[in-house]
């Protein structure tokens, strides 16, 4: 237990010590999206009858920040340790692969939450928000962040260099999060693109999360939960197998 807690504390301290880069910068970026998109689009776009576009935008941006930062935390920590070689410090002690997994994922969830809360508090100031079903908000935030933290572990283990990880981030994570209904409702898309979007797991995270605020969504929250849960379990299984085998860690 002590080894798990130590690794968790180390991982949290790692991003906290450079908080301007790991928390402040992404929070600012999300606020800029908020400012620009709501300014440009609020008079043209109406997603739901009862909701202003500015309000609609907030949960999506919050969740996007949570997801991207959860992924960034575990993946960048692992790749940095691998490239600089200090990964050996956690490979020499008897830390079980389960503890290793839990420490990296929980640290990712914490980073996602810290950034998410910053974005939420700051954007609340722009537009009124409701919290119809806070439990759904929490469930999707935790599950979504854990899923992306797990994906970050897998990507961090797989990548040998920073640019491989950057490619993973730019060609997979970014498109999935941007094309997930953060800025629009999928019902506004042509049918073909609705169909394509329905294969994007991030869509279900965003939609379920948004349901917790307004009580309205494109997809039922239960369906969202099932999709996200299944994806989470699959990725966790894969991450645990890789860690147990010492994939790219113990040659």
């Amino acid at each position, binding site marked *: *237990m*002590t*080894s798990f*807690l*130590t*690794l968790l*504390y*180390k991982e949290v*301290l*790692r991003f906290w*010590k*450079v908080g301007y880069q790991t928390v402040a910068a992404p929070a600012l970026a999300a606020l800029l999206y908020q400012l620009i998109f709501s300014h440009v689009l609020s008079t043209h776009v109406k997603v739901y009858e009862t909701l202003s576009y500015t309000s609609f935008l907030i949960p999506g941006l919050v969740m996007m920040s949570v997801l991207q930062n959860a992924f960034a935390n575990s993946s960048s920590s692992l790749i940095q*340790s691998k490239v*600089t*070689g*200090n990964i*050996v*410090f*956690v*490979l*020499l*002690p*008897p*830390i079980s692969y389960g503890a290793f997994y839990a420490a990296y994922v929980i640290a990712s969830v914490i980073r996602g939450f810290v950034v998410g809360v910053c974005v939420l508090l700051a954007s609340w100031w722009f537009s009124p928000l409701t919290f119809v079903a806070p439990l759904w908000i929490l469930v999707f935030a935790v599950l979504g962040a854990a899923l992306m933290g797990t994906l970050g572990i897998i990507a961090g283990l797989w990548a040998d260099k920073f640019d491989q990880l950057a490619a993973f981030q730019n060609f997979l994570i970014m498109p999935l999060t941007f094309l997930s209904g953060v800025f629009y409702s999928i019902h506004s898309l042509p049918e073909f693109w609705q169909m394509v979007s329905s294969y994007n797991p991030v869509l279900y995270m965003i939609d379920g999360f948004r349901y917790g605020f307004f009580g309205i969504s494109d997809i039922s929250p239960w369906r969202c939960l099932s999709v996200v849960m299944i994806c989470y379990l699959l990725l966790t299984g894969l991450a645990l197998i890789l860690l147990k085998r*010492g994939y790219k860690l*113990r*040659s």
Partner: protein
Amino acid sequence: MAAAIQVRQLTKRYGQLVALDQIDLEIQQGEFFGLLGPNGAGKTTLISSFAGLVAPNSGRVAIMGHDVQTDYQNSRRCLGVVPQELVYDPFFTVRETLQFQSGYYGIRKNDAWIDEILANLDLTGKADTNMRKLSGGMKRRVLVAQALVHRPPVIVLDEPTAGVDVELRQTLWKFIRRLNEEGHTIVLTTHYLEEAESQCGRIAMMKAGQVIALDRTSALLRRFATHTLRITLRNGDVLPARIAETAERRGTQWQLQFERFEQIEQMLAELRNAGCVVEDMEVGKPDLEEVFVKLMRAETE
């Protein structure tokens, strides 16, 4: 009593390259053991397999009787490794680094022992300095400290003195000798042969993934090394032709090789018969470098 380190038929391949070729090795508790060999011999790979950092293709390793694969919790607890590369985590201070390392081994409050290690490695003044701001030698000391936080009975150092100044080398050896006297088993690899000669009780020499010599240091020296006799003759004296054939001129000195001490007598008798007067004479001890060079050459032929 279990061996500190037991290696059985250990083989590790990287594609075509055989980095470790069926190594058998047993290091007893309390030994000060040296692992020597040229670059690429497989020393680091062997050490990494002690720590479970390298998965061997076949064979087994046990630390203090605990199998590295099946009983990794206990084998890792018994082992402290100082890696060859100068690695560090730039986010943290020296003390944080050591506290984390203690925590990974399940040790919560370790500050008394951490302070003692810091003092012994002359790091006390740097405890709250960020790792990034330390010189190379200082970082090396922190690596040593990290390997000791959990008081492992077996300590392995992979080239601990490479690129380290003389002063630190002495501090380091003093501390490591003390740990050895207190019962810790020490295994080290080094490029400085005189270091291995003065510190290690037993030595294994590796080449191309194999152990090509394994013996007590003194026995290795006796077996493979020749003695050197240096003589200075009276001005004008000429060395007899038979001796001159094998002698080497060093300034005013002649340097002669011999294997057994009886040979000195014969040589001196020959000199006397030739009318030479010996003004000065010294007998050089065999050194490990010579053994090393001989063994490496013999293996190549």
